[in-house]
C-alpha cells in the first residue's frame, strides 16, 4: 500500500522539483517586485531601487549520476569468415553539471540636489535702526521630483523649513520663504547700528511615493546661506 502511494506521488514530487528549479530568481528574492528607498547622504537625495534577491546567485544544476555500467552484447553477424565474437562495452554517459547563473537582479542609484539660493533683503543699502528689514529667499515652497529608476516611478516631495539667525542674537524659524516689499512675512528690526552676519539654515525633509505607498525620506538636507546687513542709525531731527 505504502509503495503504491510512493509510486503515485512520484510525478507530484517531480512536478514540485521542476517548479522549484525553473521558477525565476525573483521567487527567492526579498524584493519580488521592487524595493525603493529614498534617503539623504552628504546633503543630497539618494534614490535607490532594487529588483531581485540582492545578490547574483549561482546555482549548480543537479548532477546526474552515471547509470550503472551498461554492457551490451550484439550477436555476431554471419560472415563467411567466422570472427570471434566481440563483447562491446560502452562508456557510461554522464551529464556534466552546468552552472546556471541566475542574475535577475537590477539595481540603480540616483542622486538629486535640492535648490539653494542666496539671502535677499530690503533695503539693500544701509538699513536703518528701528526700521524693519525685509528678508526673503528665492527657493520654491515645495520641491517635487519624479524619477524613473529601473522602470519604477518614484515621486519625491520635500518641503523646506528655515531658521534665520539675524546676527544680533535673534532667531526666527519659519516655513515661509518670504517675499520683497510689500510682503512682510519675514522682517527683523535692528536696534543698534552695525554690520550683522545673517545666517539662514534651510532644512529639507519630506516623503516619497512609490506604487501608491507614501514613506518618509530618511534624514534631512541642510543648506546654509549667509549675508551681511549694514545697519546705520537714523537720528531724529526736528525742523520747522
Amino acid at each position, binding site marked *: 500500500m505504502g509503495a503504491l502511494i510512493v509510486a503515485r506521488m512520484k510525478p507530484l514530487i517531480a512536478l514540485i522539483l521542476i517548479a522549484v528549479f525553473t521558477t525565476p530568481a525573483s521567487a527567492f528574492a526579498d524584493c519580488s517586485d521592487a524595493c525603493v528607498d529614498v534617503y539623504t547622504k*552628504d*546633503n543630497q537625495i539618494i534614490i535607490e531601487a532594487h529588483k531581485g534577491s540582492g545578490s547574483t546567485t549561482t546555482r549548480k544544476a543537479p548532477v546526474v549520476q552515471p547509470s550503472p555500467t551498461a554492457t551490451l552484447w550484439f550477436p555476431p553477424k554471419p560472415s563467411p569468415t567466422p570472427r570471434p565474437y566481440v563483447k562491446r562495452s560502452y562508456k557510461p554517459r554522464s551529464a556534466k553539471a552546468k552552472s546556471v547563473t541566475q542574475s535577475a537582479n537590477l539595481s540603480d542609484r540616483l542622486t538629486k540636489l535640492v535648490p539653494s539660493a542666496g539671502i535677499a533683503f530690503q533695503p539693500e543699502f544701509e538699513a536703518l535702526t528701528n526700521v524693519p528689514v525685509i528678508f526673503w529667499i528665492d527657493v520654491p515652497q515645495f520641491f517635487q521630483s519624479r524619477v524613473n529608476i529601473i522602470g519604477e516611478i518614484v515621486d519625491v516631495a520635500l518641503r523646506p523649513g528655515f*531658521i534665520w*539667525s539675524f*546676527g*544680533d*542674537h*535673534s*532667531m526666527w524659524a519659519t516655513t515661509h520663504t518670504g517675499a520683497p516689499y510689500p510682503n512682510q512675512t519675514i522682517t527683523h528690526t535692528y536696534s*543698534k547700528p*552695525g*554690520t*550683522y*552676519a545673517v*545666517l539662514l*539654515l534651510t*532644512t529639507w525633509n519630506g516623503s516619497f511615493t512609490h506604487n501608491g505607498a507614501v514613506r518618509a525620506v530618511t*534624514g*534631512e538636507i*541642510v*543648506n*546654509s546661506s*549667509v*549675508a*551681511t546687513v*549694514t545697519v546705520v542709525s537714523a537720528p531724529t531731527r526736528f525742523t520747522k
Partner: protein
Amino acid sequence: MRTEKEALSITSTAQATDAKFIALVSSFAVIEGSPDINDRQQEGATAVIDLAGEFEKFADSASPENIAKVLGRLSDIQVRDFALGSHNAASFENYWGMWRYLLQVAPVGYVAPVACLFASLAYECGDIPLAYRALDRATLDQPAYSLTILLRRVFGSGWPAAAFAAMRTELHPKVSSGIFD
C-alpha cells in the same frame, strides 16, 4: 587621537573662579550700544589672532591678560563670529588647544561663546559627543544663547562637517569686512 578626544576634559579649572581673573575678563567685556563698539570689536578680532599666535609658540603659557581680553571681547557677537571662521586646516590643532584652554578658564557668564567655538571645532573633526558636551556647558552658562540653539539644530540634522566648514569660510570675510572696513 579620537580616543584621546573622547576622554578630553572641558570642565572648568580653578582659574575660572579666580576673582582677579574674573575682574580682568569683565574689564574687556563689550558693552552693547557703546559709542566705541567698532573699536572694541576690532581689538577683539585682533586679540583672537594674536592669542592664536601666542598659543602656537607657548601653548597655554600665554599671558593671562591676552586670554582675558579674548574671553571678554567674545561677549560681542561680531567678535565671536569672526573667531568662528578664523581657523583653517593648517591652524586647526592650534585653535583646538586654544579654545579648549579658554573654555576651561572662562568665568561664569563668559563660557557660552567659547563653548560654541569649541563645539564647532569638535563637530568638524567628527567628535559629536564632545561637541554636544561643549554645547551643554554653553547652555548651562547662558540657556538662551542663540548660537547654542542654532548649533544644536545643525548638529542634530547631521549636517556634513565639510558643509559646516564651508559655511564658516563663507561667513568669515563678510564678518571681517564688517569689523575692519
